[in-house]
Protein backbone atom coordinates (compact mmCIF):
# COMPACT_ATOMS: atom_id res chain seq x y z
CA UNK A 1 0.00 0.00 0.00
CA UNK A 2 2.70 2.44 1.08
CA UNK A 3 4.84 1.18 -1.77
CA UNK A 4 2.09 1.87 -4.30
CA UNK A 5 1.45 5.33 -2.86
CA UNK A 6 5.15 6.13 -3.08
CA UNK A 7 5.26 5.12 -6.70
CA UNK A 8 2.12 7.09 -7.60
CA UNK A 9 3.36 10.23 -5.83
CA UNK A 10 6.74 10.00 -7.49
CA UNK A 11 5.25 9.47 -10.94
CA UNK A 12 2.83 12.36 -10.47
CA UNK A 13 5.56 14.88 -9.68
CA UNK A 14 7.86 13.49 -12.35
CA UNK A 15 5.11 13.77 -14.99
CA UNK A 16 4.21 17.26 -13.77
CA UNK A 17 7.78 18.39 -14.47
CA UNK A 18 8.52 16.36 -17.57
CA UNK A 19 5.28 16.68 -19.53
CA UNK A 20 5.20 20.50 -19.92
CA UNK A 21 8.88 20.57 -20.83
CA UNK A 22 8.46 17.79 -23.36
CA UNK A 23 5.29 19.47 -24.60
CA UNK A 24 7.29 22.46 -25.78
CA UNK A 25 8.94 20.18 -28.31
CA UNK A 26 5.72 19.01 -29.97
CA UNK A 27 4.23 22.44 -30.75
CA UNK A 28 6.59 23.17 -33.59
CA UNK A 29 8.30 21.15 -36.28
CA UNK A 30 12.11 21.23 -36.32
CA UNK A 31 11.92 23.52 -39.34
CA UNK A 32 9.65 25.95 -37.46
CA UNK A 33 11.99 25.89 -34.48
CA UNK A 34 14.91 26.66 -36.78
CA UNK A 35 12.95 29.49 -38.40
CA UNK A 36 12.03 30.91 -34.98
CA UNK A 37 15.66 30.85 -33.85
CA UNK A 38 16.76 32.44 -37.13
CA UNK A 39 14.42 35.41 -36.64
CA UNK A 40 16.21 38.73 -36.01
CA UNK A 41 14.70 39.06 -32.52
CA UNK A 42 15.95 35.62 -31.46
CA UNK A 43 19.36 36.12 -33.00
CA UNK A 44 19.86 39.48 -31.31
CA UNK A 45 18.75 38.03 -27.98
CA UNK A 46 21.08 35.08 -28.42
CA UNK A 47 23.98 37.43 -29.08
CA UNK A 48 23.16 39.58 -26.03
CA UNK A 49 22.79 36.47 -23.89
CA UNK A 50 26.09 34.95 -25.00
CA UNK A 51 28.05 38.18 -24.60
CA UNK A 52 26.61 39.10 -21.21
CA UNK A 53 26.81 35.60 -19.68
CA UNK A 54 30.41 35.15 -20.80
CA UNK A 55 31.40 38.51 -19.31
CA UNK A 56 29.50 37.66 -16.12
CA UNK A 57 31.23 34.32 -15.92
CA UNK A 58 34.67 35.85 -16.48
CA UNK A 59 34.11 38.48 -13.78
CA UNK A 60 32.69 35.88 -11.40
CA UNK A 61 35.74 33.66 -11.89
CA UNK A 62 38.12 36.58 -11.42
CA UNK A 63 36.45 37.91 -8.27
CA UNK A 64 34.84 34.76 -6.92
CA UNK A 65 37.89 32.50 -6.95
CA UNK A 66 39.88 34.57 -4.42
CA UNK A 67 36.76 34.97 -2.29
CA UNK A 68 36.08 31.24 -2.33
CA UNK A 69 39.69 30.53 -1.37
CA UNK A 70 39.55 32.96 1.53
CA UNK A 71 36.30 31.38 2.70
CA UNK A 72 37.85 27.92 2.51
CA UNK A 73 41.25 28.69 4.03
CA UNK A 74 41.02 31.97 5.88
CA UNK A 75 40.65 32.09 9.61
CA UNK A 76 38.98 35.37 10.46
CA UNK A 77 36.18 36.78 12.54
CA UNK A 78 32.80 37.04 10.89
CA UNK A 79 33.42 34.34 8.33
CA UNK A 80 29.99 32.85 8.92
CA UNK A 81 28.50 36.27 8.17
CA UNK A 82 30.46 36.48 4.91
CA UNK A 83 29.37 32.94 4.11
CA UNK A 84 25.73 33.91 4.60
CA UNK A 85 26.07 37.07 2.48
CA UNK A 86 27.57 35.03 -0.35
CA UNK A 87 24.72 32.54 -0.23
CA UNK A 88 21.99 35.16 0.13
CA UNK A 89 21.30 35.81 -3.59
CA UNK A 90 20.43 32.13 -4.02
CA UNK A 91 17.34 32.55 -1.88
CA UNK A 92 16.54 36.25 -2.40
CA UNK A 93 13.83 36.63 -5.08
CA UNK A 94 15.38 37.97 -8.31
CA UNK A 95 12.85 40.80 -8.38
CA UNK A 96 14.15 41.94 -5.00
CA UNK A 97 17.71 41.72 -6.30
CA UNK A 98 16.73 43.84 -9.32
CA UNK A 99 15.06 46.44 -7.15
CA UNK A 100 18.07 46.52 -4.81
CA UNK A 101 20.43 47.07 -7.74
CA UNK A 102 18.15 49.79 -9.10
CA UNK A 103 18.08 51.58 -5.75
CA UNK A 104 21.87 51.69 -5.61
CA UNK A 105 23.03 51.96 -9.22
CA UNK A 106 19.86 53.30 -10.88
CA UNK A 107 19.49 56.83 -12.20
CA UNK A 108 17.91 57.99 -8.95
CA UNK A 109 19.71 55.45 -6.81
CA UNK A 110 22.31 55.97 -4.13
CA UNK A 111 25.26 55.98 -6.53
CA UNK A 112 23.27 57.16 -9.58
CA UNK A 113 24.03 60.90 -9.44
CA UNK A 114 27.79 60.58 -8.66
CA UNK A 115 28.15 57.97 -11.41
CA UNK A 116 26.27 60.20 -13.85
CA UNK A 117 28.58 63.06 -12.92
CA UNK A 118 31.50 61.07 -14.30
CA UNK A 119 29.49 60.02 -17.35
CA UNK A 120 28.46 56.54 -16.29
CA UNK A 121 24.89 55.39 -16.60
CA UNK A 122 24.26 51.78 -15.60
CA UNK A 123 20.56 51.04 -15.37
CA UNK A 124 18.89 49.85 -18.60
CA UNK A 125 22.21 49.11 -20.30
CA UNK A 126 24.01 45.93 -21.28
CA UNK A 127 26.28 46.48 -18.27
CA UNK A 128 23.17 46.30 -16.07
CA UNK A 129 22.40 42.87 -17.54
CA UNK A 130 25.88 41.70 -16.55
CA UNK A 131 25.49 43.14 -13.04
CA UNK A 132 22.13 41.44 -12.54
CA UNK A 133 23.58 38.14 -13.72
CA UNK A 134 26.63 38.35 -11.44
CA UNK A 135 24.43 39.26 -8.47
CA UNK A 136 22.16 36.29 -8.97
CA UNK A 137 24.52 33.66 -10.40
CA UNK A 138 27.95 34.19 -8.78
CA UNK A 139 27.00 32.43 -5.50
CA UNK A 140 26.63 29.16 -7.41
CA UNK A 141 30.27 29.37 -8.45
CA UNK A 142 31.60 30.66 -5.12
CA UNK A 143 29.85 27.89 -3.18
CA UNK A 144 31.17 25.16 -5.47
CA UNK A 145 34.68 26.63 -5.49
CA UNK A 146 34.68 26.96 -1.70
CA UNK A 147 33.85 23.30 -1.18
CA UNK A 148 36.32 22.36 -3.90
CA UNK A 149 39.12 24.22 -2.10
CA UNK A 150 38.03 22.81 1.27
CA UNK A 151 38.47 19.30 -0.10
CA UNK A 152 42.13 19.95 -0.99
CA UNK A 153 44.37 18.51 1.74
CA UNK A 154 46.22 21.41 3.35
CA UNK A 155 49.34 19.28 3.73
CA UNK A 156 49.60 19.20 -0.07
CA UNK A 157 49.82 22.98 -0.12
CA UNK A 158 52.29 22.83 2.78
CA UNK A 159 54.39 20.27 0.91
CA UNK A 160 54.41 22.51 -2.15
CA UNK A 161 55.64 25.40 0.00
CA UNK A 162 58.46 23.38 1.58
CA UNK A 163 59.53 22.36 -1.92
CA UNK A 164 59.98 25.98 -2.88
CA UNK A 165 56.75 27.07 -4.55
CA UNK A 166 55.37 30.42 -3.39
CA UNK A 167 51.66 30.90 -2.63
CA UNK A 168 50.64 31.82 -6.19
CA UNK A 169 52.44 28.92 -7.82
CA UNK A 170 51.20 26.53 -5.14
CA UNK A 171 47.68 27.72 -5.93
CA UNK A 172 48.21 27.24 -9.66
CA UNK A 173 50.03 23.89 -9.56
CA UNK A 174 48.36 22.15 -6.62
CA UNK A 175 45.15 23.78 -5.39
CA UNK A 176 43.49 24.58 -8.71
CA UNK A 177 44.24 21.25 -10.45
CA UNK A 178 42.91 19.34 -7.45
CA UNK A 179 39.81 21.52 -7.14
CA UNK A 180 39.29 21.64 -10.92
CA UNK A 181 36.20 19.40 -11.09
CA UNK A 182 34.43 21.53 -8.49
CA UNK A 183 35.55 24.76 -10.15
CA UNK A 184 34.35 23.64 -13.59
CA UNK A 185 31.06 22.31 -12.25
CA UNK A 186 30.46 25.57 -10.38
CA UNK A 187 31.34 27.63 -13.44
CA UNK A 188 28.89 25.72 -15.63
CA UNK A 189 26.13 26.04 -13.05
CA UNK A 190 26.85 29.76 -12.64
CA UNK A 191 26.79 30.32 -16.39
CA UNK A 192 23.51 28.43 -16.77
CA UNK A 193 21.91 30.43 -13.96
CA UNK A 194 23.10 33.66 -15.59
CA UNK A 195 21.71 32.53 -18.94
CA UNK A 196 18.29 31.97 -17.41
CA UNK A 197 18.28 35.21 -15.39
CA UNK A 198 15.01 37.09 -15.83
CA UNK A 199 13.65 38.89 -12.78
CA UNK A 200 16.61 41.02 -11.75
CA UNK A 201 17.44 41.77 -15.38
CA UNK A 202 14.01 43.10 -16.33
CA UNK A 203 13.88 45.26 -13.18
CA UNK A 204 17.37 46.72 -13.49
CA UNK A 205 18.18 46.48 -17.20
CA UNK A 206 14.76 46.60 -18.80
CA UNK A 207 13.76 44.72 -21.92
CA UNK A 208 15.40 46.65 -24.73
CA UNK A 209 16.10 44.77 -27.94
CA UNK A 210 19.79 44.80 -28.81
CA UNK A 211 20.74 46.22 -25.39
CA UNK A 212 19.25 44.24 -22.55
CA UNK A 213 16.93 41.76 -24.19
CA UNK A 214 18.39 38.36 -23.35
CA UNK A 215 16.84 35.03 -24.36
CA UNK A 216 14.49 34.76 -21.36
CA UNK A 217 13.32 38.35 -21.88
CA UNK A 218 12.77 37.63 -25.58
CA UNK A 219 10.53 34.72 -24.62
CA UNK A 220 8.49 37.01 -22.40
CA UNK A 221 8.25 39.77 -25.02
CA UNK A 222 7.26 37.46 -27.85
CA UNK A 223 4.63 35.81 -25.71
CA UNK A 224 3.08 39.23 -25.04
CA UNK A 225 3.39 40.46 -28.60
CA UNK A 226 1.88 37.37 -30.10
CA UNK A 227 4.72 35.69 -31.96
CA UNK A 228 4.53 32.64 -29.79
CA UNK A 229 6.50 30.45 -32.20
CA UNK A 230 9.63 32.51 -31.51
CA UNK A 231 9.02 32.20 -27.76
CA UNK A 232 8.66 28.44 -28.10
CA UNK A 233 11.71 28.10 -30.33
CA UNK A 234 13.88 29.97 -27.80
CA UNK A 235 12.42 27.88 -24.97
CA UNK A 236 13.34 24.69 -26.77
CA UNK A 237 16.89 25.97 -27.20
CA UNK A 238 17.11 26.82 -23.50
CA UNK A 239 15.83 23.43 -22.42
CA UNK A 240 18.47 21.77 -24.55
CA UNK A 241 21.15 23.99 -22.99
CA UNK A 242 19.81 23.26 -19.49
CA UNK A 243 19.87 19.54 -20.12
CA UNK A 244 23.45 19.76 -21.37
CA UNK A 245 24.37 21.77 -18.25
CA UNK A 246 22.99 19.12 -15.94
CA UNK A 247 24.83 16.38 -17.78
CA UNK A 248 28.10 18.31 -17.61
CA UNK A 249 27.72 19.18 -13.91
CA UNK A 250 26.85 15.57 -13.08
CA UNK A 251 29.95 14.45 -14.84
CA UNK A 252 32.23 16.81 -12.90
CA UNK A 253 30.52 15.97 -9.62
CA UNK A 254 31.34 12.32 -10.16
CA UNK A 255 34.95 13.09 -11.09
Amino acid sequence: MIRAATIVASLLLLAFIAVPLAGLFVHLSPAQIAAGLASPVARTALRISLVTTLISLALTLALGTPLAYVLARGDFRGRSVVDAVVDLPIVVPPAVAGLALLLVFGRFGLLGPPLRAIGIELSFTTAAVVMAQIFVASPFYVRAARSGFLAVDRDLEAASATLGMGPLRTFAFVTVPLAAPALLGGAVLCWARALGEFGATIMFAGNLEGISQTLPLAIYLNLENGDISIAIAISVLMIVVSLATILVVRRYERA
Partner: protein
Amino acid sequence: MLVIDVAKKLRDFEFAAALEAPRGVTVVVGPSGSGKSTLLRLIAGLVRADAGSIVLDGRVLADERTFVPPYLRNVGMVFQEYALFPHLDVAANVAYGLRARNVHATERDAQVRRILDRLEIGDLSAQRVGELSGGQRQRVALARALVIEPAALLLDEPLSALDPLTRARVRDELRSILDNVDVPTLFVTHDQSDRAAFPARVARIEQGRIVAEAS
Protein backbone atom coordinates in the same frame (compact mmCIF):
# COMPACT_ATOMS: atom_id res chain seq x y z
CA MET B 1 73.85 22.78 12.74
CA LEU B 2 70.20 23.55 13.37
CA VAL B 3 69.60 25.65 16.48
CA ILE B 4 66.05 26.08 17.69
CA ASP B 5 64.84 28.04 20.66
CA VAL B 6 61.20 28.97 20.16
CA ALA B 7 57.98 29.57 22.04
CA LYS B 8 54.45 29.34 20.77
CA LYS B 9 51.13 29.35 22.55
CA LEU B 10 49.15 26.27 21.59
CA ARG B 11 45.60 25.40 22.54
CA ASP B 12 46.51 23.00 25.35
CA PHE B 13 49.91 24.20 26.46
CA GLU B 14 52.75 26.58 25.83
CA PHE B 15 55.21 25.15 23.32
CA ALA B 16 58.73 26.18 24.38
CA ALA B 17 61.46 24.01 22.99
CA ALA B 18 65.19 24.46 22.68
CA LEU B 19 67.20 22.00 20.64
CA GLU B 20 70.51 21.80 18.82
CA ALA B 21 70.70 19.33 15.98
CA PRO B 22 74.09 18.79 14.32
CA ARG B 23 74.51 16.99 10.99
CA GLY B 24 73.01 13.51 10.99
CA VAL B 25 69.89 12.11 12.52
CA THR B 26 68.36 13.35 15.74
CA VAL B 27 65.38 11.30 16.85
CA VAL B 28 62.72 13.32 18.66
CA VAL B 29 60.51 11.00 20.70
CA GLY B 30 57.31 11.98 22.39
CA PRO B 31 53.72 10.93 22.88
CA SER B 32 51.11 12.15 20.44
CA GLY B 33 50.03 15.70 21.13
CA SER B 34 53.36 16.58 22.71
CA GLY B 35 54.20 19.16 20.06
CA LYS B 36 56.40 17.04 17.78
CA SER B 37 54.64 18.10 14.59
CA THR B 38 54.58 21.72 15.76
CA LEU B 39 58.34 21.59 16.18
CA LEU B 40 58.78 20.46 12.58
CA ARG B 41 56.22 22.91 11.23
CA LEU B 42 58.00 25.75 13.01
CA ILE B 43 61.30 24.74 11.42
CA ALA B 44 59.72 24.38 7.99
CA GLY B 45 58.07 27.80 8.35
CA LEU B 46 54.54 26.42 8.09
CA VAL B 47 53.79 27.84 11.53
CA ARG B 48 55.05 31.07 13.02
CA ALA B 49 56.58 31.17 16.49
CA ASP B 50 55.49 33.79 19.02
CA ALA B 51 59.07 34.29 20.16
CA GLY B 52 62.54 32.87 19.83
CA SER B 53 64.71 31.98 16.88
CA ILE B 54 65.54 29.25 14.40
CA VAL B 55 69.02 29.28 12.90
CA LEU B 56 70.23 26.81 10.28
CA ASP B 57 73.96 26.72 9.50
CA GLY B 58 74.27 30.32 10.61
CA ARG B 59 71.32 31.49 8.52
CA VAL B 60 68.51 33.01 10.57
CA LEU B 61 65.23 31.45 9.43
CA ALA B 62 63.14 33.14 12.07
CA ASP B 63 63.60 35.53 14.96
CA GLU B 64 61.95 38.73 16.21
CA ARG B 65 62.69 40.61 12.97
CA THR B 66 63.04 37.85 10.41
CA PHE B 67 60.59 35.35 9.01
CA VAL B 68 61.81 33.42 6.01
CA PRO B 69 58.72 31.94 4.31
CA PRO B 70 58.68 28.16 3.88
CA TYR B 71 59.32 28.29 0.12
CA LEU B 72 62.62 30.11 0.66
CA ARG B 73 63.93 27.97 3.53
CA ASN B 74 65.24 25.00 1.57
CA VAL B 75 64.14 22.62 4.30
CA GLY B 76 62.99 19.21 3.09
CA MET B 77 60.01 17.69 4.82
CA VAL B 78 58.44 14.24 4.72
CA PHE B 79 54.88 14.52 5.95
CA GLN B 80 53.19 11.95 8.15
CA GLU B 81 50.81 10.86 5.39
CA TYR B 82 53.50 11.75 2.83
CA ALA B 83 51.39 14.46 1.11
CA LEU B 84 52.26 13.24 -2.39
CA PHE B 85 50.52 15.17 -5.15
CA PRO B 86 47.77 12.82 -6.34
CA HIS B 87 47.43 14.52 -9.73
CA LEU B 88 51.08 13.94 -10.62
CA ASP B 89 53.02 10.76 -11.32
CA VAL B 90 56.03 9.72 -9.26
CA ALA B 91 58.58 11.48 -11.48
CA ALA B 92 56.57 14.73 -11.47
CA ASN B 93 56.22 14.56 -7.69
CA VAL B 94 59.96 14.24 -7.30
CA ALA B 95 60.64 16.90 -9.95
CA TYR B 96 58.32 19.38 -8.24
CA GLY B 97 60.95 21.09 -6.09
CA LEU B 98 63.31 21.34 -9.06
CA ARG B 99 60.55 22.94 -11.10
CA ALA B 100 60.14 25.45 -8.28
CA ARG B 101 63.86 26.24 -8.66
CA ASN B 102 63.47 26.60 -12.44
CA VAL B 103 65.96 23.82 -13.10
CA HIS B 104 66.17 23.16 -16.84
CA ALA B 105 64.12 20.16 -18.01
CA THR B 106 67.04 17.96 -19.12
CA GLU B 107 68.96 18.57 -15.90
CA ARG B 108 65.76 18.07 -13.93
CA ASP B 109 65.06 14.69 -15.53
CA ALA B 110 68.63 13.59 -14.87
CA GLN B 111 68.45 14.55 -11.20
CA VAL B 112 65.09 12.86 -10.76
CA ARG B 113 66.42 9.70 -12.37
CA ARG B 114 69.49 9.77 -10.14
CA ILE B 115 67.55 10.10 -6.88
CA LEU B 116 64.95 7.50 -7.92
CA ASP B 117 67.74 5.06 -8.72
CA ARG B 118 69.51 5.86 -5.46
CA LEU B 119 66.33 5.02 -3.55
CA GLU B 120 65.72 2.02 -5.81
CA ILE B 121 62.37 3.18 -7.09
CA GLY B 122 63.41 3.97 -10.66
CA ASP B 123 60.82 1.55 -12.04
CA LEU B 124 57.99 3.52 -10.39
CA SER B 125 58.69 6.77 -12.17
CA ALA B 126 55.61 6.77 -14.45
CA GLN B 127 53.20 5.47 -11.78
CA ARG B 128 50.40 7.51 -10.30
CA VAL B 129 50.93 7.89 -6.57
CA GLY B 130 47.54 6.36 -5.86
CA GLU B 131 48.84 3.01 -7.11
CA LEU B 132 51.79 2.87 -4.69
CA SER B 133 52.15 0.84 -1.50
CA GLY B 134 52.85 2.59 1.80
CA GLY B 135 56.55 1.82 1.68
CA GLN B 136 56.82 3.06 -1.90
CA ARG B 137 55.02 6.27 -1.01
CA GLN B 138 57.44 6.91 1.76
CA ARG B 139 60.39 6.53 -0.61
CA VAL B 140 58.83 8.88 -3.13
CA ALA B 141 58.25 11.43 -0.38
CA LEU B 142 61.86 11.01 0.71
CA ALA B 143 63.14 11.33 -2.86
CA ARG B 144 61.04 14.46 -3.35
CA ALA B 145 62.49 16.02 -0.20
CA LEU B 146 66.10 14.99 -0.91
CA VAL B 147 66.30 15.97 -4.59
CA ILE B 148 66.26 19.67 -3.70
CA GLU B 149 69.42 19.12 -1.62
CA PRO B 150 67.82 20.58 1.49
CA ALA B 151 69.85 22.27 4.20
CA ALA B 152 67.87 20.27 6.77
CA LEU B 153 65.56 17.28 6.57
CA LEU B 154 62.40 16.86 8.65
CA LEU B 155 60.61 13.53 8.96
CA ASP B 156 57.19 13.60 10.62
CA GLU B 157 56.41 10.08 11.85
CA PRO B 158 57.59 8.65 8.55
CA LEU B 159 56.73 5.09 9.55
CA SER B 160 53.39 5.54 11.28
CA ALA B 161 51.32 5.31 8.08
CA LEU B 162 52.68 1.80 7.44
CA ASP B 163 51.29 -1.49 8.65
CA PRO B 164 53.39 -3.19 11.37
CA LEU B 165 54.74 -5.85 9.01
CA THR B 166 56.25 -3.44 6.50
CA ARG B 167 57.26 -0.98 9.17
CA ALA B 168 60.29 -2.94 10.40
CA ARG B 169 61.59 -3.48 6.86
CA VAL B 170 61.03 0.12 5.78
CA ARG B 171 62.68 1.31 9.00
CA ASP B 172 65.87 -0.56 8.12
CA GLU B 173 65.80 0.80 4.58
CA LEU B 174 65.20 4.30 5.84
CA ARG B 175 68.13 4.01 8.20
CA SER B 176 70.54 3.09 5.42
CA ILE B 177 69.26 5.97 3.28
CA LEU B 178 69.60 8.44 6.13
CA ASP B 179 73.13 7.18 6.82
CA ASN B 180 74.13 8.95 3.63
CA VAL B 181 72.30 12.19 4.35
CA ASP B 182 74.69 14.78 5.63
CA VAL B 183 72.40 17.56 6.86
CA PRO B 184 70.69 18.07 10.21
CA THR B 185 67.82 15.56 10.14
CA LEU B 186 65.02 15.52 12.66
CA PHE B 187 63.15 12.23 12.88
CA VAL B 188 60.01 12.70 14.91
CA THR B 189 58.26 9.64 16.30
CA HIS B 190 56.09 8.36 19.12
CA ASP B 191 57.38 4.83 18.59
CA GLN B 192 60.12 3.61 20.93
CA SER B 193 61.31 1.01 18.43
CA ASP B 194 62.21 3.79 15.99
CA ARG B 195 64.38 5.25 18.67
CA ALA B 196 66.07 1.92 19.32
CA ALA B 197 66.72 1.38 15.62
CA PHE B 198 68.63 4.62 15.18
CA PRO B 199 71.95 4.79 16.97
CA ALA B 200 71.46 8.51 16.96
CA ARG B 201 71.05 11.45 19.22
CA VAL B 202 67.71 11.34 20.94
CA ALA B 203 65.65 14.19 22.29
CA ARG B 204 62.53 13.64 24.33
CA ILE B 205 59.61 16.03 24.02
CA GLU B 206 56.71 16.32 26.45
CA GLN B 207 54.05 19.01 26.63
CA GLY B 208 55.96 21.14 24.14
CA ARG B 209 59.25 21.00 26.02
CA ILE B 210 62.46 19.13 25.28
CA VAL B 211 62.92 17.28 28.56
CA ALA B 212 65.98 15.15 27.87
CA GLU B 213 68.70 14.78 25.31
CA ALA B 214 71.08 11.87 24.99
CA SER B 215 73.62 10.66 22.49
